[in-house]
């Protein structure tokens, strides 16, 4: 028995080292084979994965359907945009003649905290709501944040309205700007590579925290609330605090992702934070496998990469076949996406890669029920 156990640990360790090695050479492989544009897409996919993992805490573990999740991404993004760009010089020329240029390492934790705080703030009025009602209210909150960003250019120009904030400082860590090619240990690392590694670190952090929480007393309490809130409170679980904790943890992850997004893209505007984005992130969670970290990562990766794949294949294909573009890839994207969603919900209702327990549960449903 101990031998088998040790062998299991050894096997897992080997798999982990293999995974780490793959992830380390991935940017070079993508860059070399597909080109730099694709690596940029992979970088964005990492941000989406972080978002999906954050939402997974709220929806997958605690069972709180949140349709306004992208608001926390917006909070993080605007947090960095305002505190690391010349923009505030417009609103407060005396106070900040050159705008504010805080270090990324200061803004990031602050943004995570602020987003977490917003999570609690938005979660508090919804505590008594469940299911559809909760979804409607959170949807409203998501829109409120976006509309605020859209209109806070008057009387004081805080967010620059629909034009958004540009010229955001690139992320730099310890004097090392991620926006330029750097040589580290004799290896030449272009900017997109550097961002990939940075995002990888934070995605890894979110995975790590999710995994630890999932298998803890806190994670069990969340799942108890998801399964039956009344029974959970009868077990002595303070459902109010634990729901707020789930909102806060999920929101903080969204805030981190937003901060990275703003620094990577150098520009934020309200249109990046529409309802459609919230729905996309929710689809990543549901499609991949609610409550299962690897499933959610798969869902995030697929939904972030497939549209790009379509964009790159549909246009040339139509050009070659008909000599002109008949269907816009953007509208085709939504069509295919809808079909995919319907198929998954019909044939794999627990997601593409559900957790072991979920899988067991689905297969055991088919067995005849035992009665006492």
């Amino acid at each position: 028995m101990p031998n088998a156990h040790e062998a299991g640990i050894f096997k897992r360790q080997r798999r982990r080292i293999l995974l780490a090695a793959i992830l380390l050479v991935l940017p070079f492989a993508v860059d070399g084979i597909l080109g730099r544009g694709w690596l940029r897409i992979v970088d964005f996919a990492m941000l989406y994965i972080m978002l999906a993992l954050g939402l997974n805490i709220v929806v997958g573990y605690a069972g709180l359907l949140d349709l306004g999740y992208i608001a926390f991404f917006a909070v993080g993004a605007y947090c960095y945009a305002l505190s690391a760009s010349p923009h505030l010089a417009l609103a407060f020329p005396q106070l900040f003649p050159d705008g504010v240029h805080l270090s990324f390492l200061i803004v990031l934790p602050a943004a995570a905290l602020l987003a977490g705080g917003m999570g609690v703030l938005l979660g508090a009025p919804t505590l008594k709501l469940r299911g559809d009602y909760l979804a409607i209210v959170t949807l409203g909150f998501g829109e409120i944040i976006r509309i605020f960003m859209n209109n806070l250019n008057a009387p004081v120009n805080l967010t620059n309205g629909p034009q958004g904030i540009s010229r955001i400082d690139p992320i730099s860590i310890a004097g090392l700007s991620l926006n330029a090619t750097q040589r580290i240990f004799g290896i030449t690392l272009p900017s997109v590579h550097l961002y990939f590694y940075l995002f990888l670190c934070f995605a890894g952090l979110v995975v790590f925290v999710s995994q630890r929480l999932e298998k803890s007393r806190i994670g069990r309490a969340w799942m108890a609330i998801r399964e039956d809130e009344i029974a959970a409170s009868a077990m002595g679980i303070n459902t109010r605090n634990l729901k707020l904790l789930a909102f806060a943890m999920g929101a903080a992850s969204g805030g981190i992702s937003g901060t990275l997004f703003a620094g990577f893209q150098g520009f934020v505007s309200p249109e990046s934070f529409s309802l459609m984005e919230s729905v996309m992130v929710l689809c990543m969670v549901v499609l991949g496998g609610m409550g299962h970290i690897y499933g959610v990562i798969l869902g995030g990766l697929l939904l972030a990469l497939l549209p790009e794949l379509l964009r790159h294949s549909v246009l040339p294909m139509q050009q070659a076949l008909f000599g002109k573009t008949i269907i816009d890839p953007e509208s085709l994207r939504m069509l295919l996406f809808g079909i995919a969603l319907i198929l998954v919900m019909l044939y794999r209702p627990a997601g593409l890669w559900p957790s072991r327990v979920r899988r067991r549960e689905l297969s055991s449903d088919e067995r005849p029920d035992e009665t006492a």
Partner: protein
Amino acid sequence: MKLLELSGIGKRFGGLNALTDVSLHIGRGEIYGLIGPNGAGKTTLFNVITGLYQPDSGEFNFNGKRYRAAKPHVLAGAGIARTFQNIRLFANLTALENVMIGRHVRTRSGVMGSIMNSRAMRLEEKACRDKAGELLNLVGLKKPHQTLAKNLSYGEQRRLEIARALAMEPLLLALDEPAAGMNATETENLKELIEGIRNAGITVLLIEHDVKLIMGLCDRVAVLDYGRKIAEGVPDEVRNDPQVISAYLGVDGE
């Protein structure tokens, strides 16, 4: 020694007086039965005792402390554990996880401890898992502990619910119709289990329709009818009380 003392408890739902001026007390180590015809207010009283409903009037004292409009998790922390009439397990979690969730009030690990995987957290987690396994054996769950709760048979689910409540190390265990839907053998096993629980020093409050079980098991019994307590006493007294007979059989007693 009184563990639970209710005096003058009233609960209204709109125009309906579900409970009117109910007073009772349960002593430590007792098995206390609550019976009454359908709609008499048994479950309402039960929900008041476990904090699911807040009483509109009256006093609620538990373990020497007065509680006002206490939430279920507060009372659970104070030592009141319950089961539900229509079983409410965490259906998609394993039997073991269900019982481990019952340990929530008796464990402490927080977010930081869990993320850091601290030594205290690991020890607590192991103790929690061991205790949960023990309890599952105690209530006689023979299926693997990793079985999902919803895949257990009805009788097993009932017993799992009791194990989950016992995991809270309660002072008062409140059972809402635990024998509902059980056959004679299962009821007999349940009776032994409840006696065992009492012998372990836990006070038991029992709502039951199975009058034979109540009479054979309880030290004292209260009878509710139309939201009022119409009788209380040792089973033999209550059985022969004319008001109780009239409530149950509809005989015009007065």
